[in-house]
């Protein structure tokens, strides 16, 4: 449970931004609270941008029209009106992402299985039966940091990052998992690929996964992957 003692600590970052720190440790309760506050502050007069992350929320404000004292006051009032435990306010969505777990699109699948002392099927089972939380979106547009992977699947990042990770690659590293929304360099261990677009400029929601969403992966066959428009190239 979160209490009023969890009221975030507010510090200035520059003359037009401040950082709200909710906790020193990552937890679902903290992440829920940040999602609620982000929702509450969205569209508030003078607020230009909000960047929620694991334990913090960066607030960018309009310092030409408002001074920081007025912004601080508005932030305090809005945050006080948020009940950290009121999940009815939280519009957490369930997102299911189909994944083809195969060596041709998941070149690290074998290494991961070896490192975790599991069979490839057990790796797939454990990865796809867990419900993950989107703790933060960033790095590239639509890249969702999903946690937590089961303990048995914890693997380190690759010693040498790949220069090009194909779009849709599903990867794991330490206690996190993610899907690459665009071609970027990347050091996570790639175990499969989704045919689904994570970022769509033409769509109203833009990004498939939003902060706070509950995300689950669903294993699909190679054929289903191809039917859904999946591509096998890229490496």
């Amino acid at each position, binding site marked *: 449970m979160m209490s009023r003692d969890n009221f975030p600590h507010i510090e200035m970052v520059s003359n037009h931004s401040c950082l709200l720190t909710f906790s020193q440790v990552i937890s679902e309760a903290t992440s829920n609270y940040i999602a609620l506050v982000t929702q509450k502050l969205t569209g508030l007069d003078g607020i230009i941008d909000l960047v929620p*992350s694991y334990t*913090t929320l960066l607030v960018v404000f309009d310092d030409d029209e408002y001074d920081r004292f007025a912004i601080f006051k508005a932030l305090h009032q809005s945050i006080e009106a948020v009940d950290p435990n009121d999940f009815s306010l939280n519009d957490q969505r369930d997102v299911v992402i189909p994944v083809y777990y195969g060596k041709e699109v998941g070149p690290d699948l074998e290494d991961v299985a070896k490192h975790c002392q599991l069979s490839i099927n057990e790796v797939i089972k454990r990865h796809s039966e867990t419900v993950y939380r989107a703790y933060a*979106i960033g790095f590239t547009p639509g890249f969702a940091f999903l946690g937590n992977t089961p303990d048995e699947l914890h693997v380190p990042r690759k010693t040498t990052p790949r220069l090009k990770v194909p779009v849709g690659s599903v990867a794991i590293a330490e206690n996190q998992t993610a899907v690459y929304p665009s071609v970027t360099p990347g050091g996570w261990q790639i175990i499969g690929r989704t045919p689904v677009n994570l970022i769509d*400029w033409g769509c109203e929601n*833009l990004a498939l996964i939003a902060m706070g969403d509950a995300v689950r992966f669903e294993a699909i066959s190679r054929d289903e992957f191809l039917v859904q428009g999946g591509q096998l190239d890229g490496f």
Partner: protein
Amino acid sequence: MAFNVIKPGLLALLQDLGRHGHQSIGLTTGGPMDEMAFRWGNALLGNNSNCPQLEITFGMLTLEAQANTNIAITGADLGATLNDKEISPWRTYALKKGDVVAFHQPIWGLRAYLAVSGGFLCDPILGSVATVMREKVGGLTGKGDKLQRGDVLPYSACSHQPQKAVPRLAIPHYGQKEIPVILGYQYKSFSSLERANFFSSDYSVSSHSDRMGYRLEGKAIHSDLKGIISEGIAYGAIQVPKDGQPIVLLQDRQTIGGYPKIGCVSRVGGGILAQKQPGDVIQFTPITVDQAEQERHLHMARLAQWR
């Protein structure tokens, strides 16, 4: 009506004041690297402050006007010419159909702004035309492309207005070596010795500097923090990675990151930094949030008063 792009330049990008409100899904803002120069360009022509302009990095750009209009040039002096005659920045010029405007090479600074009466006409993506090449968003095509040979840059034809120039005292001090740094919330994690080193050493601009961030080379500094949980990155944040060489994160910065930050460069200071070329030497000087506010308000008040 439009400009025909005869030579596309090294890196010419359409920019407005940036794509705001989408950082929560990882989308960066983009926008002019030298915001004050951009604002003056639109002010000179009586444009709305967000009207799209061309940000010209380094030069090597030639444009031919298809119709009468007025232009304003601000920011760096990239050796601009109008029909082969030298022209200087921070003022307006009247263009006739067939006139040729060219930007050659830097005389000082790195980025010039070309504004046109009414702004360049271009469909915004998520409320902005700001070009972010890395994210493949914005610009003429909407796909984040820089200007190409053969592009046409549309504008509305406009009759000639009286010519105007920016008052000398309002032009930022580009020659200054000192870049002001607002002392940030993680400043305390740097020991007094590290802080002293940071503020008393010369840093030179690395050749690996771009619209995402300016990398600096000089005395390495270290934070007591081993690492931090990834968090939102403000414009101007000075990240210090393990090698101790500071990186100032600018308009095309990533939205979140996990390195300690010693402080934050103001937008006015960031604009001056963005005019520095690889090899240029700078020094960081500490300022308070109050001082950064005053500096900003002074610049904005001059602009408003002049308009």
